[in-house]
């Protein structure tokens, strides 16, 4: 397993595009997270203060929600990494050199697990540092009480990457892969979801994945205006199921196709 990870890392660590995407992700997440409290709301939400969203334990929810908005960027990066293997025909070379289709796919899945883990660790460290500076409360039970959001974030970003793996394998060309990745997640599924009742549309792949880390609860005064779902419910399990389905579909594609 470590051998395969090291091979996959060898493929990408000297690839400038990879670092551009990682840099952008880190920058965008940090910027949006830090800029968010400066937003002034009008109308009924004007009484909303964002301070509580930035202290332990609520910071975990806020941070993972904001980081989740940029999972799409990591997905686009993975589409590029996967389609490179087809445009350079290195998938063919890897197999000629001795890998089976299963070896190739498992190496990619290990890479996706690693990338999801790295982003999760980044978000976790960022949360700890920001929280320690911003929070008046400092006891460990408060700090770690909502840390389940971090686990949910790992699963969420992994699901995005698995979908990107599937799209990249399906379309083989970076341009097509990225366009369909975005078109499906941002247009096709919202349109389908719009036609369906919430009880069904919430379980479509991307609805489900975004429901995993719901919009943070909105409380004004003592009243909860928006109540958000817990991260470890049915959406958590379904996200894992969808990820497994994307990987299996990728396997079938690779196996059936001439590489």
């Amino acid at each position, binding site marked *: 397993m470590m*051998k395969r990870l*090291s*091979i996959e890392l*060898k*493929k990408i660590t*000297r*690839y*400038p595009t990879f670092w551009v995407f990682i840099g952008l992700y880190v920058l965008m997440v940090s910027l949006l997270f830090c800029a968010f409290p400066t937003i002034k709301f009008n109308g009924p939400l004007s009484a909303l203060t964002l301070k509580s969203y930035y202290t332990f334990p609520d910071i975990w929810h806020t941070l993972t929600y904001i980081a989740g908005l940029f999972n799409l960027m990591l997905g686009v990066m993975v589409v590029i990494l996967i389609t*490179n293997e087809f445009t*350079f*025909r*290195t998938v*063919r*070379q*890897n*197999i*000629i*050199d*001795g*890998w*089976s289709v299963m070896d190739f796919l498992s190496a990619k899945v290990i890479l996706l697990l690693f990338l999801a883990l790295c982003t999760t660790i980044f978000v976790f460290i960022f949360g700890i540092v920001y929280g320690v500076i911003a929070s008046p409360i400092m006891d460990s039970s408060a700090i770690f009480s909502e840390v389940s959001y971090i686990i949910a974030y790992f699963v969420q970003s992994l699901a995005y990457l698995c979908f990107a793996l599937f799209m990249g394998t399906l379309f083989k060309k970076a341009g097509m892969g990225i366009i369909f990745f975005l078109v499906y997640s941002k247009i096709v599924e919202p349109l389908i979801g719009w036609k369906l009742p919430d009880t069904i549309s919430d379980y479509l792949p991307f609805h489900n994945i975004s429901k995993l880390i719901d919009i943070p609860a909105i409380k004004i005064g003592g009243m909860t205006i928006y109540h958000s779902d817990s991260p470890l419910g049915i959406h958590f399990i379904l996200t894992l199921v969808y990820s497994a389905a994307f990987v299996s579909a990728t396997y079938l594609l690779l196996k*059936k*196709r*001439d*590489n």
Partner: protein
Amino acid sequence: METVLGINNLSKQYGKLPALSNVSFTIEKQSVFGILGPNGSGKTTTLGIVLGVINSTSGNYTWFDNSMANPRKKIGAILETPNFYHYLSAYRNLQIAADIKGISYDNIDKVLKIVSLKDRKNHRFSTFSLGMKQRLSIASALLADPEVLILDEPTNGLDPQGIAEIRELIKDISSQGKTIILASHMLDEVEKVCTHVAVLQKGKILTTGRVTDILGTNDIIEVLADDIEKIEMLAKTHPLIKSVSKSNSGKLELSFTSSVSTSQLNEYFYTKGIVLSHLLLRKKTLEAQFLELTGNRK
């Protein structure tokens, strides 16, 4: 003889188009096996199937009589185009190949030296010329010191010196007891380096066997003398004679099982008391030979 590769009734359809139909042949250890055929005859498809990157429609193949768990690690191959990560250096690309094959990096410098790319090892693949890319893929194929080397059009894009070097390399590797499978559309390439050949056209095997039987010594010597019956009789008793026939113009056309020069033949007849009035070596052009092999089946 040990069998390295056995191919049995391999067929491949691309949609409705048959790319290969019922191809069978066997490759013995230590042979230099040529797969000869024009473009689009199914050479790369055949090699792609036995390398596990193309799925066959029917038929099967076995490597080393199924005696190895992962035979591809014992095979070095180039298929069609050089396939490397464009943004990585030659050295790093070969590191990835070595990692997949599960071998150390010790051989990398050695194989880069063989293909004279050592000076460029830290340059990115995308900066290479076509010939250099081709040479890097040959280096990659040699990396694991493989038992079998598969070369699909290895001299594509190389200059005459590069072509000569590759041919020397093939002979050199073959002399170390390795098996080589060479796909080519160039008859003289196959004739120069191969011991065995399978001729493919439109996905079908036309003929397969030893190069000397199929391609070699197909020259014809025309002779004429006053006593035509006597030279015909003498020709038929020549120890190396293969066939004797009469041309329309009344000349005798002789072909031999191994090469016989005109002076040797002249001397042979002279010692038997015959003075030839006509002696002509007619070399078949490569194209003529190839057309002869493939032309009748169109």
